[in-house]
C-alpha cells in the first residue's frame, strides 16, 4: 500500500462540507461498526428468550408472537439503543476531554464528571421528585462538577494533573451527596438508585434512547466541527493562535459539548465507568491518528458499551450484572496499564 493511500484525504459531502478523513480511520470505524452490529445480533438472539436469527426480520417487522415482540421490541432493542447512544456520547466526551487536557487520565469519569451528573440526577429524582426532570438534573450536576473542578484546581486546563486530583476530590464529594439523597428516598427508590449508580442498561425504554439520541444529533456535529480546531489547540495555545484559532474559546466550547454529552449519557444509564477513558484511547491506537478522532471514539465507545453489557449479562455467575461493574473492573485494570506505560515514557 503506498504512502499516498495511507495519508489523510478529503471526503466531500456536497459543495460546502468536506471531512478530513484517513483511510485507516475509515476502515477501523467500519470494522468496529460491524463488531457492534454483530454484538447487537448476538444480544437479540442469545438465551432462552432470544429470537432465532431467521425469525428476527419478521419480529422486527411486527409479525412475531407477543412474547417475541416483548423481548425484542420492548426489552432488548431499547437497551441496545441506549447502550450504543450512551457509549458514543461517553466516547466523544472522553475524546474531547483528553484532547483539551492533553492527558489520558483527564477524562470525564476520572475527574468526577460522571459522579457529578449522578449526584444531580439523584437530587432531581429523589430530593425534588417531579420538580426537575432527571436528565436536566444530571446536566446541572455535571456542570456543577466541572465548575468545581475548574475553580478548585485553580489553573484550569493548563494543569491537567491538578484537574485530575481535584476531580477525584469533587467526585468523592458528589458520591457522598448521592448517599445523602438516597437517605431521603423511599426504600424502593433507594434500591433503584443504588443499582443505577453502578451504571446499568437494565430496564431502559425507548424514551431513554430518545433522550440520548437527541443529545447526539445536536452535539455530535458540534463536536465534529470543533475537532480540527481542537487538534490545533493540542499543539499549544501560541501555535493555535498563530493559525487563527482562539484556543480559550475552542476549549470552553468543546468542554461544554463534552459536559452535555456526559450528562445526557449518565441520565439514561448512570455513571458507567471508564468508557469515556478507554474508548478514545483504543480508537487512537487503532486508527494511529494524532487528533481527537471524534467519529472513531464514538464508534469505539458504542461498541465497547454494548459488548460490555452483553458480557455483564452472560457472566457465568448466575447473576445479571449492571454493565458498570464490568467496565469499572476492566477499565480500572486498563487505567493501571495505561499509567504504567505513560510513566515509562516519562510523560508525567
Amino acid at each position, binding site marked *: 500500500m503506498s504512502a499516498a493511500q495511507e495519508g489523510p484525504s478529503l471526503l466531500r459531502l456536497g459543495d460546502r462540507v468536506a471531512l478530513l478523513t484517513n483511510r485507516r480511520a475509515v476502515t477501523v470505524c467500519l470494522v468496529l461498526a460491524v463488531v457492534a452490529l454483530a454484538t447487537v445480533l448476538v444480544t437479540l438472539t442469545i438465551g432462552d428468550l432470544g429470537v432465532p436469527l431467521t425469525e428476527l426480520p419478521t419480529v422486527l417487522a411486527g409479525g412475531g408472537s407477543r412474547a417475541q415482540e416483548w423481548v425484542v421490541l420492548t426489552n432488548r432493542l431499547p437497551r441496545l439503543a441506549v447502550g450504543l447512544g450512551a457509549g458514543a456520547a461517553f466516547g466523544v466526551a472522553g475524546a474531547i476531554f483528553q484532547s483539551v487536557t492533553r492527558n489520558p*487520565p483527564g477524562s470525564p469519569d*476520572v475527574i468526577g464528571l460522571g459522579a457529578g451528573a449522578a449526584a444531580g440526577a439523584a437530587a432531581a429524582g429523589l430530593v425534588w421528585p417531579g420538580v426537575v426532570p432527571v436528565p436536566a438534573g444530571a446536566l446541572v450536576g455535571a456542570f456543577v462538577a466541572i465548575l468545581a473542578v475548574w475553580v*478548585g*484546581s*485553580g489553573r484550569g486546563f493548563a*494543569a491537567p*494533573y*491538578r484537574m*485530575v*486530583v*481535584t476531580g*477525584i*476530590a*469533587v467526585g*468523592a*464529594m458528589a*458520591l*457522598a*451527596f448521592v*448517599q*445523602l439523597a438516597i*437517605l*431521603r428516598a423511599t426504600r424502593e427508590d433507594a434500591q433503584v438508585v443504588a443499582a443505577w449508580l*453502578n451504571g446499568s442498561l437494565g430496564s431502559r425504554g425507548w424514551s431513554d434512547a430518545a433522550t440520548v439520541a437527541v443529545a447526539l444529533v445536536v452535539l455530535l456535529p458540534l463536536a465534529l466541527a470543533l475537532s480540527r480546531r481542537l487538534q490545533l489547540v493540542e499543539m499549544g495555545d501560541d501555535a493555535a493562535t498563530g493559525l487563527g484559532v482562539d484556543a480559550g474559546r475552542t476549549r470552553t466550547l468543546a468542554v461544554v459539548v463534552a459536559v452535555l454529552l456526559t450528562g445526557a449519557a449518565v441520565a439514561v444509564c448512570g455513571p458507567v*465507568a*471508564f468508557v469515556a477513558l478507554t474508548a478514545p484511547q483504543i480508537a487512537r491506537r487503532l486508527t494511529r491518528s494524532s487528533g481527537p478522532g471524534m467519529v472513531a471514539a464514538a464508534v469505539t465507545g458504542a461498541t465497547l458499551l454494548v459488548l460490555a453489557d452483553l458480557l455483564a449479562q452472560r*457472566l457465568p*455467575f*448466575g*447473576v445479571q*450484572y449492571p454493565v*458498570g*461493574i*464490568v467496565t*469499572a*473492573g476492566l*477499565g*480500572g*485494570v486498563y*487505567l*493501571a496499564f495505561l*499509567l*504504567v506505560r505513560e*510513566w*515509562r515514557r516519562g510523560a*508525567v
Partner: protein
Amino acid sequence: MSTLDAPPSARAPHVTGVRGSRARSWGLAAGLLGAVALVAVACALSVTVGSKAVPLGDVWGALVAPDDSYASVVVASRLPRTVLGILVGAALAVAGAVIQGITRNPLGDPGLLGVNAGAAASVVFVTAVAGAGAGRSVWAAVPGALLAAGAVYAIGSGGRGPTPVRLVLAGAAVTAALVALVEAISLANPTVFDSYRVWAVGSLAGRDAGATARILPFVVGGLLVALALSRALNALALGDEAATSLGLRAGRTRLVGGFAAALLTAASVAAVGPVAFVGLAVPHVVRAFTGSDHRWLLPYCALLGPVLVLGSDVVGRVIARPGELMVGAVTAFVGAPFLIAAVRRGRAGL
C-alpha cells in the same frame, strides 16, 4: 530540588534555638491535653446527640448505675459506637500520616491509595468463601490491604519512584477495579450482600458488639509500631540519601511503616467499612501547628482522628433525621476539600 522532592519537614524542622524549642515542646504538650479534652467533648456529643437526645446527667447515671430506663438503653447502644469511633479515627489518621511519611507524599490516605478498597475486597472475598463469621475477623482484611498497598506503590512508582499524583491515580485505578470486584461478588452472594451493604460507605451504626474487642489489639499494635517509627520517619523526610547517611535503613522503614499502615487500615475496614479522607485531612490540620516532626504529629493524629470521626458521625445523625448519613459520606464531605487545598498550595508538586 523540585517542589515534589521537597519533604514537608524540610521547611522548618529545628530553626528555633534550644530555649525556643523547649518552650515549643511545652506548648505542644499542653496542646496534647487540649486534644484529649476535644476527644472528651466529641465522646460526650456522640453519646448524647442522636435521633433522641439524652442529657449528659442521665448518661452519667446510666453509666454508673445502669437500669432499664430509656437513657440506659440508648447509652448502651451508643457507647460501643463511640469507642469504635475512637479506635477507627485514631487508626485511620495515623495510617494516613505514616503513608504520607513513607511515600513523602502529602496526598497519602488509605482511601485514596486503594488500601481501603483492598481491605474491603478481601473481607468480601473471605465472607463469600468462608461465611460471615470469618469475614468479621481483622485477618480477613489484612491480605487485601497489603496487596492493594503493594500494587498501588508498584504501579505508582513505575520504576522511577512514586510521585504524589502517580500514587493517587494508581490508587484510583486499583480502587475502581477492586470496588467492581466487591460489587460483583456481593451481587452474586446473598450472605455477602447483607453484610456488605451495611458498610459499603463506612458506617459506625449497627456494628456487632465484638467489633471493638476484635480490632483493639490490631489498632493498639499498629499505633505502637507507628509511634516507634516516628524518628525514622523524620529522617526519611530528609530524603533517602540523607536518611541513609544518618544510619537509617530507608527500605526497611518503608516496609515496616507500610505494614503498620495496612494493619491499621485493615482493622478499621473490618470494623466499620472503608472510610475515606480521615487519613488525609487530620495530618494536614495537625501539621499546621506541630510542623512535621512525627514525634508530635503522630500522637496528635491519634487524638484528632477520633474527634473527626466522632464529629462526622454526630453530624451524620443530625443532618439526615430521622435517617442517618453514614460516617464515611460525612468524612468525604469534610475531607475532600483538604485534597483540593493540598493541590492548590502546590504540595503535590503540580
